[in-house]
Structures are given as C-alpha cells and as structure tokens.
C-alpha cells in the first residue's frame, strides 16, 4: 500500500518537476518560482516533520521518527537552497550577497534550530529515547521560535517603514500569469521534497529489515552449532 502511494508521489513529482523548469528565462523575477516556492516548500516539509513528531509521541512507532527526521533533513536542504538562490537574487536586486534583513536572520535562526535537532539526535544512542527526545525538541522549538520567525519581520518592518525589510509579493506586483506558475511551483517543489524524503525513508526501512535478517541469521547460525 505504501509502495503504491509512493510511486504515485514519484510520478506526480516527476511530471510537476517540468513546470518550474519551463519557466527559466533571463529576468530575476523568475527566481520567484525557485526562491519563494522553495521557501514555501521548506515550511510545508518542516510542518510535516512536526506532525510526525507529534504522532511519534502519541504512539512510539519507529517509522514516525524516521519520517520526522527525514522531512526535517529535507527542510534543511531546501532551506540551504532557498538561502543560496536568495543570495544570488539579492546580489542582482539589492547589490549584495548578504543583507542585514530580518527575514534572512529569521531563516538563519530556523536553520540553526534544525541543525541543532540533528546534533541532538546524533548524541543519543538509544533509538527509542532518541526518537522521543528529538520529537520533544522538534515540537518545543517549533512552538517557541517558528511563529516568531513570521511575527518578528513584520514587527520590525512596521516600526521602521521603508527602512530595509523584505519587499514582498506586492512590490513585484504578482499578477495572475505569475500566479499560474507560482502555485504549481510550490506544489512541485513540495512534492519533490516529499519524494526525496520518502526515498530516503524507504532505503532506511529496507536497511533496517536487512539488518534484522542479518541479526536473525547470525542468531540462528549460533544456535545451530
């Protein structure tokens, strides 16, 4: 069942992959389909990770933990791509690779949080304990910091009107033809993220099954002696 669902994901993601790629032209506004869409996709992936962390706490099934961590990893990956594309965009629109902008700082905070999540994971040996503790951290950090990442830029902008800040959609006048590509791009990137994550989840699952078999083989081998 899971396999069928995953194949569907793969097919849909594969088809949708073409959509953002068709739009490559020489104007920087095109970056909207990459930078902004990846940014949206990152948040969707991180929310999926959060949901699976909550699920893990409710019912400690190893699969939920793997899903949560893989989606967080994809979220970081997309976050890094988002920062890179944003940096290139900033070079050509604002004239510098890195600008002291509240949104940039907020993204850096988010990336630091999720990198810390992986440091935490790697420093706990026991599997069940790792699952539970990292799930607790994932939920806690999401609840404590991520809403702020949305609130803080607005707050600073509202207090310093016209003083830096990220020009949003309205500044570029997102008309309907752009929207027509932008929303599929968001869906496309999200599905690609989901596809990558599910691939990794599946390989992990297979690996654990193989390890179990090997363990069983060695166990039965030793009893046969």
């Amino acid at each position, binding site marked *: 069942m899971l396999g069928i669902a995953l194949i569907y994901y793969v097919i849909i993601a594969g088809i949708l992959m073409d959509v953002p790629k068709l739009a490559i032209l020489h104007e920087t506004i095109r970056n909207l389909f990459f930078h902004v869409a990846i940014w949206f996709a990152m948040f969707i992936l991180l929310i999926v990770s959060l949901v699976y962390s909550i699920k893990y706490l409710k019912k400690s099934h190893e699969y939920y933990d793997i899903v949560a961590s893989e989606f967080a990893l994809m979220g970081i990956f997309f976050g890094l791509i988002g920062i890179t594309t944003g940096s290139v965009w900033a070079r050509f629109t604002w004239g510098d690779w890195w600008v002291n902008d509240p949104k940039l700082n907020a993204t850096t905070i988010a990336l630091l949080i999720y990198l810390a999540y992986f440091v*935490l994971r790697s420093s706990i040996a026991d599997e069940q*304990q790792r699952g539970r503790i990292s799930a607790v951290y994932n939920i*806690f950090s999401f609840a*404590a910091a991520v809403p702020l990442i949305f609130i803080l830029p607005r*707050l600073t902008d509202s207090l310093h009107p016209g003083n830096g800040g990220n020009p949003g959609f309205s500044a570029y006048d997102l008309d309907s033809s752009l929207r027509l590509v932008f929303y599929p791009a968001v869906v496309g990137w999200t599905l690609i993220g989901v596809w990558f994550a599910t691939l990794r989840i599946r390989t992990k699952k297979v690996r654990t099954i193989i390890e179990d078999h090997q363990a069983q083989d060695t166990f039965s081998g030793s009893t046969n002696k």
Partner: protein
Amino acid sequence: MLIKEIRALIHKEILFEWRMKYALSGILLYLTSSVFVVYIVFELGKAPITPTTWNVLLWVVMLFVATNATAKSFIQESRERLLYYYTIASPESVMISKILFNGLLMTFLVIGGCAIFMILLGNPVQDMELFMVNLIIGAIGFAASFTMISGIASKATNSSTLMAILGFPIILPMLLLLIKVSGAAIDGLDRSVSYDELMTLAAIIIISITTSVILFPYLWRSN
C-alpha cells in the same frame, strides 16, 4: 493538590539551593567575573562605551549566565533523586516548580548582574521602570525556555554543549525583542513604542511554558 505539590517542590528547590551554596556562589562569581571582563576590556581598549554597546553587552552576559544557571536544573540532578520525584509527584508539577524556581533565581541574578553592570560601567538608563520590568520579563523568559532545554539536554551525552546549541537559536528572537525594549528604555523613548514588543514577549513566555508543561511528561520517564 497540584498547587500544594508545586509549593512543596519549590520549597525543596530553594532549600537545596541554600544548602548547596557552592553552586549559587559559583554562578554569582561567574556573573561578576564576566561583567568584570567586559569592564576591563573596555578600560584597556580606551573605547568609550555607548548606550547601545552597554545594552547589548548586558544582555549577552545575561544570556550566558542564564544558560549556566538554568542548565543545572536537570543536568545536575542525580538519577536516583529524579526517580524519587517520579514516584511522588506529577510531571506537570515538577516542570512548573522548576520553571518558577528558575524564574526566581534568574530574577535575582539578572537584577544583581545589572547592579554590578551599572556600578562598573555607568548607568545610561533613562526610563528606569520600563527597564526593570523588561529585565524581569527577560529573566522569566530565560527560565521558561531554558528549563525545558535543560531537561532535553540532560538526556543526551554531551549535555553542556547541547544546552547552548539547542537553547541559543530558540532564545534568539526573544533576546532581540528584549534588547529592543531595553534600548527604548535606555533612550527614554515613549512607552507606547514598546507595548507591541512587551505583548509579544508575554505571548512567547506563555507559549513556551505551556508547551514545556505539555511535553515534559513524554520526556521525563525516558531514562
């Protein structure tokens, strides 16, 4: 029942702190010496300390003191003692009492630290009341976020490094707001400028306390 439990646990925390004076005096010494380092460095460099620098340095010192002071709330508890708590108290009351106690401790440390700061580095603050309110909110906010982080970090192996890695990104937004409000207080700006920030800070504190209390039951039995 819950309130009685919390009261007993806070009483226990205070008693412990009083009996283990070396821990408390260690933190106080840490605070004093870090403020002194700031003072000496600026004296030697002959650099004039502007109100902005004063403000930022104060909060950075407070951040480090908070990490060290609250880290011990779970990390330094022995396993046997934790097991004993599990048998006699509910996880919610353990968490709430720890947060409240850390809040008290941090308020004490923050006000003390600020006093030393003002003695050594001068006092540029114009709106003292707002500054103090912000200081106390900061102390409670540090306690609210770091108590849970300390609980998480205590379960892992390299807990003192983890405390900083896990805690700093989470506390950063709060720290920015605190620095902004205290900056406004130092410059003596109109108080209505800071209401938004103070409301957001209160909201963050409420969010982190509720999530800590909700999540702690999942954490505490996992050794």
